[in-house]
């Protein structure tokens, strides 16, 4: 009996994580609290058992995450006894950068991309795990599992190292780093199925519940705190909604849904007719926008 596709994907991810632990001096796992991060963390626990993962978690906090995400993050890190680093771009905080006042592009650049670069430089990490998958977006489909970054954190898509078999070249010079994507070959359905099969804990924002929301430019935005500027006469309404991805709450559109259990969510995901990233404002800017952002250092 040969392995099923999920068993093979799991084994591949574990192999990648161990390779980083064995060869990189100061690795870190980027933890974004979403379902992909949850799976990645679960894989890390498996990869090194009975040891703990030999690296800390890093969360880049834009200060605009759903409150529940932050609670989930802190509870989980304590429960597992893992080191959790939280980085906030204090320059951005001082300037009062936020998605409502500065727009999604500027906010994402300052509070996410710049903040990430700050954190990686500050702690001198030479390898950072990310939960990105190749099925998410066209330019991701061509990115290596071990993706080289210059000392300026830049990705050069035309000058990537060939990556053969499961032999990964982890060698870098001082100041340079690797982004490592152990779940490159997973698809969205694989992620859900694995969460189901392994009983992995995810934030309840993924499940439908009555939540206060307003509608903006076709996106359903949750009023997670009092920082949402309401138009005159605009009132948040309670709706049964859930989130397909988790990010900054003003940039993450909810979908109306009755899915309150994991099988319900998977069913809905399979029957849905729009792709996962559609709920994210960031991908719509330009046709090749993700490729450009990645060259500049976005995960």
């Amino acid at each position, binding site marked *: 009996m040969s*392995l099923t*596709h*999920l068993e093979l994907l799991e084994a*591949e991810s574990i192999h990648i994580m161990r390779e980083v632990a*064995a060869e990189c001096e100061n690795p870190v796992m980027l933890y974004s609290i979403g379902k992909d991060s949850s799976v990645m963390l679960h894989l890390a626990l498996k990869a090194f058992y009975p040891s703990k993962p030999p690296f800390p978690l890093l969360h880049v906090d834009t200060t605009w995450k759903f409150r529940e995400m932050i609670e989930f993050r802190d509870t989980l890190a304590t429960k597992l006894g893992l080191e959790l680093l939280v980085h906030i771009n204090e320059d951005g905080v001082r300037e009062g950068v936020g998605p409502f006042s500065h727009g999604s592009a500027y906010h994402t650049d300052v509070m996410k991309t710049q903040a990430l670069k700050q954190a990686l430089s500050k702690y001198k990490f030479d390898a950072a795990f990310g939960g990105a998958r190749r099925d998410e977006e066209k330019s991701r489909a061509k990115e290596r599992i071990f993706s080289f970054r210059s000392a300026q954190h830049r990705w050069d898509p*035309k000058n990537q190292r060939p*990556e*053969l078999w499961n032999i990964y070249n982890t060698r870098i010079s001082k100041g340079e780093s690797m982004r490592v994507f152990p779940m490159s070959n997973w698809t969205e359905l694989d992620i859900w199925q694995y969460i189901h099969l392994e009983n992995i804990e995810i934030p309840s924002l993924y499940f439908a519940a009555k939540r206060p929301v307003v509608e903006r430019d076709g996106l359903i935005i949750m009023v997670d705190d009092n920082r949402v500027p309401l138009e005159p006469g605009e009132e948040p309404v309670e709706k049964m909604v859930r989130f397909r991805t988790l990010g900054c709450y003003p940039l993450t559109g909810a979908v109306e849904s009755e899915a309150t259990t994991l099988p319900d969510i998977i069913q809905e995901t399979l029957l849905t007719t729009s792709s996962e990233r559609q709920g994210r404002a960031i991908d719509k800017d330009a046709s090749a926008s993700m*490729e450009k952002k990645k060259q500049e250092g976005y995960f």
Partner: protein
Amino acid sequence: MSHQDNLIAEDILAYLEAQRNKSYLRCLTCGSVDDGKSTLIGRLLFDSKMIYEDQLSALESDSKKSGTQGEKIDLALLVDGLAAEREQGITIDVAYRFFSTDKRKFIIADTPGHIQYTRNMATGASTADLAIILIDARKGVLDQTRRHSYIASLLGIRNIVVAINKMDLVEFSQHKFNEIEEAYRSFADKLNFKEIVCIPMSALDGDNVMNRSERCKWYKGMSLMQHLETVDISPEIAETSFRMPVQWVNRPNLDFRGYSGTIAAGMVKPGDEIIVIPSGKRSVVDKIVIRDGDLYQAEVNESVTITLRDEIDISRGDIICSTDDPAEQSDQFQAHIIWMEEEEMFPGRQYIMKVNNQTVPATVTDLKYKVNVNNFAHEAGKSLALNEVGVCNLSLGKPIPFDPYKKNRHTGAFILIDRQTNATIGAGMLEFSLRRAANVVWQDLEVGKMERASLKHQKPAVLWFTGLSGSGKSTIAALLEKKLFDIGRHTYVLDGDNVRHGLNNDLGFTDADRVENIRRVAETSRLMVEAGLMVLVSFISPFRSERQMARNLLDDGEFIEVFVNTPLEVAEKRDVKGLYKKAREGKIKNFTGIDSPYEQPENAEIIVNTVETTPEQAVEHILAYLDERGYLKSI
């Protein structure tokens, strides 16, 4: 992802249970844009309903803007990912595509077909179980068909689908199809494939892609998808012996010592006897540990942690094997190498090899022949250029455990890494051990380097003078030798000119010959250091990697690089031998500084500036260095 499966809507739990047991197939598509490769992949994604509505509407608008199919949807646009590719209308990298059917999950490595992208195809092939080779029915078997088939075979793919595409443009002619199939099989016989399946197809219209086409009833075989869903690619677990390259030693506390790795062949159970290669130590498997509990057994491709009954010394890079047929070990190999870098590969250069979870220094000692990837002919050559394939002899810094690639794709594969840039510059497949390591036993001589040197009351070393022609290397070396001789040191000068008239009189000035020239000089100077001498080497030696190679042959402190730094203008103005003039007139080719590069040393021990200092001052400077570091004291 509107899977048509009614089960999703009716009984999601039953559906998930069924999904769980899907198998997995990794395939590679090869062909050029003209063959309709991107269209075929787009078709597979489209017809297996992997396209969402928002992606479809984006595709429709893109098709109108930059499509090549008029009013029809251009499926190729779905897969040509990078912006540069969309502009140029070509696929320049490897992209991975995912789709699934009710029976299987698929990863397709989408790779370009032109000869300048051979390395990308090899990359895609390295993880694939099956290759789909596209042929344009109007054109038949071309050079590129042979090339794609050869690379697939070289990387160990055993299952081939020949997609004879664009059948709609030859009116689904059975005669045409048979002709192409026959032509394909006649050359592919040599390539050691397990199975070749030829399918007539129109990717553009979908004929024989998902379902059998009504338009060519004479074809009785399966559609592409029917074949992909049923082809048997399961690993031969029972017939192969267990081995697991150790990736990480798992030591959470003093009471637990486990060895983590991905199983590369066979299966393992607690109680199995094992042997560790290269140490040869034996033990018995105690437990197979995973987070969910201990396993009764584990098999190829699983990532596990194994504990043993005995405490034996095992490190990353060792292979734990079953005792019946363990891996071999050697430090001398014959191997196939695919070169992946602009800068050519030269025999004599030293690279870093990553193989079985460890990195070792590796030198290509001989390029036996190059393989013409279009017609499989063996050709003589002195170097391997980007995208060329060659059969080489390799010598490693230490013995490694391995299997021949034909026996195991995991334990017989390696990559080569550049020492300076850290780029992956080559990939290779180990064929067999040259067994020289086993035969050459170093004589344990009672008189060694230290004894010889001490008789001469000196510390042996190489002073390696590098710099442009006319920079003053030989003048300074000769003066220095005189001074050292005067104070009773035993020396010898190896000079570019005198060596080229004797030892190296068979070498010219091409890059390959320059590398060999330096290799011989480096080896000669090493022997002289063994003899206890102070060796003064005066060679232009323009390439960093050759100087590094010479340095690596010697022990720490024995190699002193002296950079005679004279700007080109100055050296050319001096032109003691009249060579620059001839080079400028085109009478001498490959002249360093004129039409061949000089790579300056980055970490030379001594730098001599001949514009501001006289040769005598330079010699004083070098003597001071030697004195300070104890080279002139008796030992």
